[in-house]
Structures are given as structure tokens and as C-alpha cells.
């Protein structure tokens, strides 16, 4: 069987304008109401799983990289953070809010916050789940007004990089030929 490959969300910093629309889309997509206004009116808590970060003068969004051998999954003592073939997510019913996952995530992509789980208020871990239950795919990718966010597939990214490198190499060969003929 072909090994399934998990995608992850990546930002193009040249396109990101730091408008935080992805954060709002993320928070809204994970509510029952489905919209910010609806969730606020229903008294639902809004939690985003991505952050727009400013680096020097560039703004860009960061979120979970969907590690295959994810430290957050390995450290979780109750199995609340789990890995399927293509993504990692949190089953908040199992979460005990020990915060070990927030401590081991190299990207700082997991946070613990108060939420309502199965009718009870508790603190639980939050992380990007690629909106797996959403028919249209990740809400942030769909909402991004400048198309800075895309869902990337690692092998596709590698193929592209290899192509670029090969083209560069060919280009270099070309120029050498010209140099030799001169």
C-alpha cells in the first residue's frame, strides 16, 4: 500500500499582510455556530490554533507543522494528543491539562486554555487539526485574502525544490559552455 502523506499549512511571507483573518477563521471554524458572531451570541468560547507573529518588520502566520513523529504525541500521558496517518490532533475529553505538550512542541504551536468539553468546563490543549471535519479543508487557507496560506504536501515540495535545483544546475552548465566558447 502506498504510504499516505500528511500535508501541513505553510505561509508565504511575501504574501502575508498580517491581517489576522486566519486566526478568526480558525476560531470560528472550531465552534458549533461556525461564525464569529454566531459563537459570540451563543456564548461559545473562541480559540484560535494559529498565531500571526511579527519578525522584525515581516508578519506571518505560524501553526502546527503536523510532525510525523510528533513530540506532543509521544509525551502525552493519556493519549489525548494522537497521530493518524496524515495529521495530529487532540481529543480534549482525554486531556488532563498537564501542559507537557506545550513544553515539547519545537514550534510553540500547542496551547492550553479553558473550554467546554462534553458539557463541562475544563482546561485542555489546543492545536491545529487541519480542520479534518470541515468539507472545504482548512478554514485559514480558505479565508486568507492574499492566498498566503497553502496546504503543502512534503513530497511535492521536495519535487519542486529538486526541479529548481536541477534547473539551476542546467543553467550553470549553459553559462559554462558560453564561457568556454568565448
Amino acid at each position: 500500500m502506498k504510504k499516505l502523506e500528511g500535508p501541513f499549512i505553510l505561509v508565504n511571507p511575501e504574501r502575508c499582510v498580517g491581517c489576522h483573518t486566519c486566526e478568526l477563521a480558525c476560531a470560528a471554524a472550531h465552534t458549533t455556530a461556525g461564525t464569529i458572531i454566531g459563537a459570540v451570541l451563543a456564548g461559545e468560547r473562541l480559540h484560535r490554533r494559529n498565531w500571526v507573529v511579527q519578525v522584525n518588520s515581516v508578519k506571518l502566520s505560524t501553526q502546527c507543522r503536523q510532525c510525523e513523529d510528533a513530540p506532543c504525541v509521544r509525551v502525552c500521558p493519556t493519549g489525548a494528543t494522537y497521530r493518524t496517518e496524515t495529521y495530529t490532533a487532540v481529543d480534549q475529553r482525554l486531556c488532563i491539562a498537564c501542559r507537557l505538550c506545550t513544553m515539547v512542541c519545537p514550534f510553540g504551536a500547542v496551547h492550553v486554555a479553558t473550554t467546554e468539553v462534553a458539557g463541562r468546563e475544563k482546561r485542555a490543549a489546543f492545536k491545529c487539526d487541519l480542520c479534518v471535519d470541515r468539507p472545504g479543508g482548512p478554514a485559514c487557507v480558505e479565508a486568507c485574502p492574499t492566498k498566503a496560506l497553502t496546504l503543502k504536501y512534503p513530497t511535492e515540495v521536495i519535487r519542486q525544490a529538486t526541479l529548481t535545483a536541477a534547473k539551476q544546475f542546467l543553467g550553470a552548465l549553459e553559462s559554462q559552455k558560453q564561457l568556454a566558447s568565448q
Partner: protein
Amino acid sequence: MINLTVNEQPVTVPEGTTILQAVRAAGVELPTLCFHEGLAPYGACRLCMVSIAAPRHALVASCAYPVEEGLAVETNSPEAVSARRLALEFLLSRCPQSEVIQEMAAQEGVTASRFGTPPPERAEELCVLCGLCVRVCREAIGAAAIGFIGRGMERRVGTPFDIQAATCIGCGACAEICPTKAIKIEDRGNKRILHTWHTTVELHKCPQCGKLFAPEPMAFLGEMFPEIEEQWALCPECRRARTAQQWVEQRFTSPA
């Protein structure tokens, strides 16, 4: 898959499910205090008592009873209701000040307990001895920093010899999981004080932003996960900034 009925309504659940989970899957509410999905069943609080009518007649703690084919569960039979009420009366008698217990009792129609009130020195008691803190510390975290002490009336939860628990990592999962908010934890200055456990742990300071974010004893995670060695000292916020910085640098310095 196992077929059973909950209040005469048919339910199908996977094997190994407990009656409690099946009842909740059927949309029927049952009160619980000592149950947590992430931990093994324990059956201490006796609030989830239900009657089973088939294949045999019994009163069982639904959280610890695995479903079986043809099981007929009744959540509102007179004996189940009175068992739950009795448990609530005991709890109310132990912790009359607990708002959680008061609310749960009111929902089951219990307003007063026949078993009196606690002695004055225990008037403020909030702990119901459900064992969630003890179990989360032992089963999940693996620290076993706290345990039950004494028997009968003297039973309580504490650290060995009631002094600083050497194995406590200061994660605070005990306080998070406590259903009656009986465990007091406070971050004061650069220390996390677990008042109930007579334990104080130091908090680690992020070298970049100065934010205190993790208990120092959690540093063992850095050794357990060599791949986060570089990021370990940083707080999640600074880790995000670092990730973003690296990505931008890589993006704008690498050719094409």
C-alpha cells in the same frame, strides 16, 4: 459491536465501552465526580449508579462496568435513584461548603443530608476523596507525588510525611482535574506554590522575553526529547517567533 438498551432505547457501542459511556452516547445524563476519560475507571464516587435488568438484576457503578450483549440499563429505576441520592447525601455531609456538590445534589433532588455536618476543623472541606488527583499523578504523569493517607474517617490525600514532594514536577494536573476545586495552586514571583501539597517548585524564565512559563522540574523533557534541545529554554511565544524568523531567513536568503 455490542447491542444494549438504555432506558429501553437501543444503543450500539463498540466492545470494551463502559455502561457510562454507552449511557452518555444515548444522550442520557448521569452525574460523575471520579470519572475521567483519560484515566482507568475507579468507581469511587458512586454517583453513576444504574440498575441493570438483564441478563441479571444488579445495581452497578456504570463507569466501571463494561457493556455486554443484551444488557438492559435503567438510569432512573427507584433503586438507582436512591443509590445516587444516598451517595450525594454522604458527599453533602462531608463537604457542605462545596458548590459543585450542592449543585449536583440539587439536580438529583437532595437538599439536606441525614448524616449531619463535619466537625468544625473540617467545615471547609472540599475534597471528596474521588482519587482523581492521586490517579492522574501516578497513572498519567508517573510522578506519584501524592497518595491516600490514613483509613476511614482519617482518609485524606497528601504527600509523603506532608512535606515537599521530591517527585512533583509542578505540572498542576492534580488541580486541573479536581472536580471540586479542592487543590490550591498559586504562581507567586518565580515560584509555583502547591499549597495543598506543601510543595514549592521554581518556575523557568524564558531567556528572551523574561516570561516565567514552566516549572523547573519539567526540564527532564529537554533530555527526553533531544530534538527540542535548542528551543527548550524558550517560552512557546518565543518559539513561534524563532520558527517564523528561521522561515523568513530561509525564504529570503536561499536562491529562488
